[in-house]
């Protein structure tokens, strides 16, 4: 088989495309060989569960980054909606607790409004995404602390607490929420015009505008989706902790960004996939869980995580350079 034929071989292409999956499998193998506890079914299911909230945040984050933006506010929006959810369903207040369904509506709307705030400033007023979302990060965190006076809210209804703390067919409910969000995200990105516009804007915003794409509305949409994902995470977090905790979500935006980058989404926008992001989230969790199971101090995990992010970005940059030179 000559070199050209080898390059065009379908199997080779699939293997190349699945590079990050091989990395995940290698991690699983290495961790399993170091700790017999790691590869137990209970621990593997736990890895999925521990990945879920970051995974949901990463769905929205991926869409924003693909447009060439960034959303630093998701951790704080998560904290705010966590508090909103807990206020909706607590029996410690003077009002009647809302139903779980209504709480979903309220939290997703609140998250969407935070996202719309970001989107308005970035898309329609031309503010840099880094600055706008950093401001929202501060506002969201402040909001979560102000409405509770820095105290946690508890006595949440049993129905609400079950949202994140139940299992179906042996799989924790959080994993299903993640799965649903990934399916919706992949559908938007792969099967709708909107998805193609998100890539087009990230690839070349001016060319996208000239070809008739509504750049502003599309970017606005990406931030709203990111806010909705954070809103959902806030609700799930309140249920997972069976309380409203103002400090939750601190730094979660960095985990979501890291998952996107490791999963192959370019920070410059225009390329990457949600499936890659899913694998990126799993890689981060496998490292964290594996080290925990082995009893390795958490500070080593930080070093490992930083190294992986750097390597991922390096590979992203070099592959882009290669593409440019081959064009």
């Amino acid at each position, binding site marked *: 088989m000559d070199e050209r034929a080898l390059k065009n071989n379908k199997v080779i292409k699939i*293997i*190349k495309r699945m*590079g*990050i999956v*091989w*990395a995940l499998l*290698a*991690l699983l193998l*290495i961790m399993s060989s*170091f700790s017999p*506890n790691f590869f*137990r079914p*209970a*621990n593997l299911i*736990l890895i999925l*569960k521990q990945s879920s*909230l970051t995974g949901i945040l990463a769905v929205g984050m991926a869409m924003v980054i693909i447009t060439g933006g960034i959303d630093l506010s998701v951790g704080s929006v998560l904290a705010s909606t966590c508090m909103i959810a807990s206020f909706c369903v607590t029996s410690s207040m003077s009002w009647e607790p809302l139903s779980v369904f209504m709480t979903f509506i309220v939290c997703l709307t609140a998250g969407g409004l935070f996202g719309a705030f970001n989107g308005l400033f970035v898309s329609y007023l031309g503010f840099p995404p880094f600055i706008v979302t950093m401001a929202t990060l501060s506002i969201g965190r402040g909001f*979560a*602390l102000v409405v*509770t006076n*820095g*105290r*946690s809210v*508890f006595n949440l209804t049993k129905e609400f*607490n079950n949202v994140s703390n139940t299992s179906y067919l042996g799989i924790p409910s959080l994993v299903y929420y993640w799965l649903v969000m990934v399916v919706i995200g992949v559908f938007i990105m792969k099967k709708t015009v909107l998805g193609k516009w998100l890539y087009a804007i990230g690839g070349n915003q001016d060319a996208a505008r000239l070809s008739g794409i509504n750049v502003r509305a599309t970017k606005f949409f990406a931030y709203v989706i990111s806010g909705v994902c954070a809103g959902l995470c806030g609700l799930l977090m309140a249920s*997972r*902790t*069976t*309380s409203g*905790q*103002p*400090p*939750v*979500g*601190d*730094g979660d935006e960095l985990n979501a960004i890291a998952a996107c980058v490791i999963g*192959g989404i370019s920070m410059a926008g225009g390329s990457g996939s949600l499936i890659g992001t899913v694998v990126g989230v799993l*890689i981060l969790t496998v*490292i*964290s*869980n594996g*080290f*925990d*199971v*082995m*009893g*390795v*101090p*958490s500070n*080593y995990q930080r*070093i*490992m995580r930083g*190294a*992986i992010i750097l*390597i*991922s970005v390096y*590979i992203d940059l*070099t*592959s882009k350079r*290669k593409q440019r030179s081959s064009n």
Partner: protein
Amino acid sequence: MKRYLSLLLMVILALSLFACASPAEPAKSTGPQASDAEPTEGPAESKGTVYWCAHNTANEFSVNMAKYCEEIGKENGYKVIVLDSDTDVAKQISDVETAIAADATAIFIDPTSTDGLNAVLLSAVKDHNIPVICIHGGTSNQEELTAFVACDMFKGGEIEMQMLADDLDGKGKIAILRSTEGHDVANNITDGYYAVLENYPDIEVVYVGVGDWGADSATPYAETWLTATPDLNAIICNNDGMALGVRPVVASMGLEDTCWVYGLDAISEARMYIREGGCYKGSIMMDTYAEFLAGFDILNKFLAGEPFENKVVIDPVGVNAANIDELYPDD
């Protein structure tokens, strides 16, 4: 190109694992009791694995807690694995789940939240038969868990503020530097402050700041407060970490004789300054070594099916120049 990623990831991970596989032996405890204890050999056969779900391991106090847990665990024949939640309730839930999935012999935990861990801890006890012993901090469903061993944080706050009130003869201007809003330990210590202040109407709280347990978060507050109000009589902090960020500001502004600093935890650096006799007037000894001794004693009894006390409260002790040599003779 992504093939290189997988290769690099594997190489780095393998190297990291080899580097981390044999963590260094923990140094001998510097705690007051530990310094008197004879080093003992752990039993040849391990009784199982205890997971220490730490609040964090980011300062001397919490690092010492992890060290004490490992040390006393080893003496009692247990392997101890330390999981660091980094003061994040969601991460600590994951840590507990990790311990459950690994079939832990017991879970020792310093909860980051009074209410946020109830479901997962109850599940460990009820669904997986894993004893859960809260060390240093508690949860609101404490009576449903195996045991609770702690220094009373509220009382610690009360003693700290009482030391301040006594030193100021019950009147003066003070600033309070509490830690992260929303964290229950900080809430309890601060509530202790205000409980004492109710008895001292002539002590005016001029400023309240919110730090993050570290010196770097405290320094800017001290600079601002003392520049605006140089006649401030004292700054009281939720821990020594922050008080140690306040002390150099007070010293550099030449206010050591008029503005006093109080911390909590009695870590080694704070004890040094208390001995020096400058502006650092007092701290609180939270005897975490005694907490772990009690914790492992309870665990041994639990596993042996013997009766045990399921609530052990260790009183914090005020540390100042008058009693520091007595409390810490080996410093």
